[in-house]
């Protein structure tokens, strides 16, 4: 494999709150390789978005602070950069697509002006007219019909899908090496979601940007990601290629995500949701933070006492479970309970 374009190493981001210190991202490491789409999944509060904000250097401080780790973009550590260097990188080498296109565009500026701004921020020599031409090309590229007319319209004159296309155009305006899409389809209608994901895929192919796709939607992951990072309670609990994640998960949490998902392609008698609720990040349980909800632990001592490291499970895959080898067998049991064979559909 080639060298990663972006490497996150031991990243730990904390928030100081009145209730205590929240370890939103806790010793997270992963690599992003050129051209690939890395899916980052996890439920709310698992640290997905904070990881993205840490990469961009946009963790609000105070109350947030990055206490450990390094983020290497090709060989430069983003965490050691000055604010000015980092600002030059944002929007040029690293593009970001936000969750809600309805509020991520400034309501008092035209869509065209905002995309042009993205261009002109990083290329001061670009004239207004050149920026306009380039913006119209970008709008056409992301599939906005009548881009010339759309240029001068305000965000409220665009539908959600059109706005998200504009946001994508803005993010890829300067041919980023890394594209971060934070829940890019969550705020959109289901019918629009597929279109926007398709646009994202095209945009990614044109710019050849490595993409971090943050989502809680396993369907989106299955469709678009090459590799998957599963996060739970601020930690990475499993890393694998997308096929393995769905067919042979090695962490009980990943298994729980699969078994709680309604599916159209297999007949299920019932769903098997994960019991309990996400851990309190201020006061993490001793040992494995998934233990209180885990169906594999069966009261074993080590789960209560020792935080499981990310064990290598071969072929570039890893799972943070002391008993990851038992998960496949557990999957069979779960499937039987649900009245279907999981992992067969994908």
């Amino acid at each position, binding site marked *: 494999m080639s060298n990663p374009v972006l490497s996150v190493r031991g990243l730990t981001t904390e928030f100081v709150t009145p209730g205590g210190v929240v370890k939103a991202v806790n010793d997270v490491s992963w690599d992003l390789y050129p051209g690939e789409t890395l899916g980052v999944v996890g439920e709310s509060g698992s640290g997905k978005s904070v990881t993205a904000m840490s990469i*961009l250097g946009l963790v609000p401080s105070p109350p947030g602070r990055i206490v450990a780790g390094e983020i290497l973009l090709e060989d430069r550590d983003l965490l050691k950069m000055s604010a000015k260097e980092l600002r030059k990188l944002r929007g*040029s080498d690293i593009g970001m697509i936000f969750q809600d296109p309805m509020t991520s565009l400034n309501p008092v500026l035209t869509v065209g002006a905002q995309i042009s701004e993205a261009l002109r921020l990083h290329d001061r020599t670009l004239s207004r007219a050149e920026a306009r031409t380039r913006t119209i090309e970008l709008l056409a590229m992301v599939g906005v019909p009548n881009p010339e007319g*759309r240029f001068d319209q305000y965000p409220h004159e665009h*539908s959600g899908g059109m706005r998200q296309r504009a946001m994508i155009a803005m993010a890829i305006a300067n041919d980023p090496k890394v594209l971060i899409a934070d829940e890019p389809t969550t705020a959109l209608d289901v019918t629009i979601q597929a279109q926007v994901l398709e646009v994202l895929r095209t945009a990614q192919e044109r710019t050849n940007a490595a993409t971090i796709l943050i989502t809680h939607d396993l369907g989106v992951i299955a469709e678009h990601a090459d590799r998957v990072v599963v996060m739970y309670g601020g930690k990475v609990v499993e890393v694998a290629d997308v096929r393995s994640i769905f067919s042979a998960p090695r962490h009980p949490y990943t298994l729980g995500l699969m078994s709680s998902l309604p599916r159209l392609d297999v007949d299920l008698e019932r769903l098997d949701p994960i019991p309990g609720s996400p851990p309190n990040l201020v006061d993490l349980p001793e040992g494995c933070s998934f233990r209180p909800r885990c169906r594999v632990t069966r009261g074993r001592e080590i789960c209560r006492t020792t935080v499981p490291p990310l064990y290598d499970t071969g072929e570039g895959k890893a799972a943070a479970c002391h008993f990851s080898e038992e998960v496949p067998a557990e999957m069979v049991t779960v499937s039987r309970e649900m009245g279907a064979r999981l992992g067969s559909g994908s």
Partner: protein
Amino acid sequence: MRAWRRFRHHTPAMIGLGIIVTFVLLAALAPVISPYDPNDQDLAAAIQGPSGSHWLGTDQLGRDIATRLMYGARISLMIGVLAVAIGLVIGVPLGMIAGYYGGWADLAISRLADMMFAFTSILLALTLVAVLGVSLQNVIVAVGISVIPVIIRLVRSSVLSLREEPYVEAARALGAGNGRIIVRHVFRNSLTPVLVHGTLSIGVSILLAAGLGFLGLGVQSPTAEWGTMLGEGRQFIFSAPHLTTFPGIAIFLAILAFNLLGDGLRDALDPRMRTVDRPAA
């Protein structure tokens, strides 16, 4: 121009605008409209009621009240507009800094505004005039300064919410610096409340300046100014009520007009009332 269309259908606002335009025209064209000089005394014709030759009567020195009111409109409107301009020029940047950066800058600026708030504006203006000395210029400065704390608070509070907007974060993610974000993304979006409040403040400032004039600390006689005219006519309030009634009505109308206009602007510019009325192509 949707906002203008909505504004046009806002009857009270149009009435307000009409009154203001009328005042402006009267003030500008006073020498053309009136045959009298505002300061020409005609003691033989002192304290006359309204008549054909003096529509609103004459004052204790025989000066034509209508003429003095027209020239007075110049002073009052000027004070109102300039005072609010001073308030905006100083208050808006301070409010922006306080709201956007927070921290010690916010602490310092907000405490300053709180201190100014502790005095009622008339008291603050009175003190300032007493310190600075009585003159038209100082009245404008004093009234302007008394406008500042309200503007600071208004801008600060709207910036506090605007800086958390996703589009501000999006701009930051694009690599925009603080200066650009403040000017292009935050300031533009806080314009509406500032504009509305600025308009309302003009009315308040006119009243404040008239109050100073009434107390003898405003624009000095013989310059025609509504508050001063009201103050001088006070002695004749029972024998010749028209000396005080007409300046009073002028002040009342001016303030009413700016309030109506401000309300109309708020309704017209309120983003919650913004609708899509051009079909998306």
